[in-house]
């Protein structure tokens, strides 16, 4: 097991607290009419993003889904630029052209949030192929939901990544539900990602996706394997979303007691327990929680104060020359 010291873990805890606070803020801003469209909040999934990020290098590539706020922030997008994106502000991380489902921070190796289920697994494999061709030690990581395991692109990506021994990690965030339907009711496998790996000669592990240390440990081993030229790994992180699928989903399909059971294994609480075990004083943990709350509060204020997106921007950025001209 990876050794995470108290100081490092306190930093991871603070990152998770910032993500949790930002997701709650996004929820509140939506209810206040300041966020339009929809959101797919990742509250409950923080340990997957933060644990994985802790195990990756700055020049590695990350590809996420429409439930991707946590990955964008874990890789270095600021809460302010993420909230500004949701609030249609000019300072949004994608200039308010992407929105909640497409948060991207290319300069931090966060190469996109994709809202067509499963589409980004081949794309991540392609980035890994690029690293292999260029002879770098970079790895690419595709985070995806349990629902993506039944789409063709998942299977095409796992097969070819295995055959070409690509440095790519396939990390499933299994939160038990696709949108509203339980994954178990429509899938011929107990572990929808991990059980399929053997069919592609890939190693797989089912891990506790709510334990940031367990995630960091598994990802760091899988990344080392990929960097050594030994190919992809499938990780299935078991976790749970605290909100419904999207903004309009009250998640009334959940059986009684299920949410409470998962809340009792909240990734923030698990990290706190580990911090206490490591002898980190309660006051330091509280101070980290307070710093996280302050970060979120100032991000909300900054995003609110930012200028709205400039309508002229609607016709930029299509082509590499920055414009949108399609004819003479």
């Amino acid at each position, binding site marked *: 097991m990876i050794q995470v010291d108290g100081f490092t873990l306190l930093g991871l805890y603070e990152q998770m607290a910032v993500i949790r606070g930002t997701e709650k803020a996004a929820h509140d801003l939506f209810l206040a009419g300041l966020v339009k469209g929809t959101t797919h909040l990742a509250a409950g999934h923080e340990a997957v993003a933060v644990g994985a990020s802790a195990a990756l290098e700055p020049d590695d590539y990350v590809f996420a889904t429409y439930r991707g706020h946590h990955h964008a922030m874990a890789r270095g997008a600021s809460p302010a630029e993420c909230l500004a994106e949701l609030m249609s502000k000019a300072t949004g991380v994608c200039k308010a052209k992407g929105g909640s489902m497409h948060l991207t921070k290319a300069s931090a190796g966060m190469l996109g949030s*994709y809202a067509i289920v499963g*589409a980004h697994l081949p794309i991540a494999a392609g980035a890994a192929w690029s690293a292999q061709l260029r002879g770098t030690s970079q790895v690419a990581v595709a985070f995806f939901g349990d629902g993506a395991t039944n789409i063709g692109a998942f299977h095409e990506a796992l097969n070819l990544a295995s055959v070409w021994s690509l440095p790519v990690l396939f990390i499933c965030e299994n939160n038990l539900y696709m949108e509203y339907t339980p994954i178990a009711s429509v899938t011929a496998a107990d572990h929808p990602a991990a059980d399929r790996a053997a069919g592609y000669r890939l190693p797989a592990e089912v891990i506790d996706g709510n334990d940031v240390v367990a995630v960091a440990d598994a990802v760091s081993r899988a990344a080392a394997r990929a960097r050594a030229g030994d190919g992809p790994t499938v990780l299935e992180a078991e976790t749970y979303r605290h909100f419904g699928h999207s903004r309009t989903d009250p998640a009334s399909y959940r059986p009684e007691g299920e949410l409470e059971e998962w809340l009792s294994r909240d990734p923030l609480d698990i990290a706190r327990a580990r911090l206490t075990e490591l002898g980190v004083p309660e006051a330091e943990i509280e101070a980290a929680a307070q710093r996280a709350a302050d970060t979120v509060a100032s991000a909300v204020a900054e995003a609110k104060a930012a200028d709205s997106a400039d309508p002229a921007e609607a016709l930029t950025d299509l082509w*590499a020359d920055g414009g949108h001209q399609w004819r003479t």
Partner: protein
Amino acid sequence: MADLITYRDAVAEGLAREMRRDPSVVCLGEDIGAAGGVFKTTVGLFAEFGPERVRDTPISEQAIVGMAMGAAMTGIRPVAEIMFSDFLACCWDYLANEIPKMRYMTGGQVTVPLVVRTANGGGLGFGAQHSQSVENWALAVPGLKIAAPSNPADVIGLLASAVRSDDPVVFFEHKGLFASRGETAPAGHLVPLGQAAIARPGTDVTVVALAATVPIALAAAAELESTGVKAEVIDLRCLVPLDMATVLESVGRTSRLLIVEENPYQGGWGGTVASIVADEGFELLDAPIRRVAAACVPLPFADALEDEVIPTTEKVVAALRTLLAY
């Protein structure tokens, strides 16, 4: 006389020139390696550049185009082959939702410099699922550049521009032209994307064509010459960027426009060309704009039936006669 080369050999030649020039150019697709491609359009590449840069893939169109996209986003210039253009439907998500939207929806953070090559079009009796002209599918998607050469030199010149483009390019090679011959291209030949060619100058009527309809339009123009008609044939070469300046300038001289396209009339690219001329060139016209396009049915198998559906020289001659008599 300059050296002649087939259209199919021009594809391999164009790819080889770019791969020699730029080590980041790699090819991937089904049977493109030692087999040289089912249409023999990649012959010699595997021997010259090896299996690292000329990669055989499984029959996994989503993986082919999806991986090309990921590689293009991270410093490689991939050229992906989709064997028959009909199969683009198997990976259409990447061409409709992923590749063309990436740069825009990230606010310009990510560019996707790749080429998707594909064998397009009918006339060879391959039946409904291996014969369709689908260049209009790509035209329906903002964010894709579209090239469709009609002759070997343009294959080489447009392929060079496509590979060097920082924007994604869908490159339609016409199956019916693979065996045709033409002059090869000099070293360093580049045809800029979005620059139409006047394939035959004329004064009486403008015929706008693309890929395999260019030789059809040229044959029709030659046939009408004996009756004293001078038809101008424009080879669009690209649909995006669309060189409407050349079309409008020509219509300004001829005052009549016929569009010859192999994709179906229903949703075909000629509708876009016609709408722009109607909008911006209405006063240049002395007759209605006419289109010879494929009938709105799937491509049938038998030659006699296929000829009923796609443009032929006879149909173009008939349409020109009607248009000139207006």
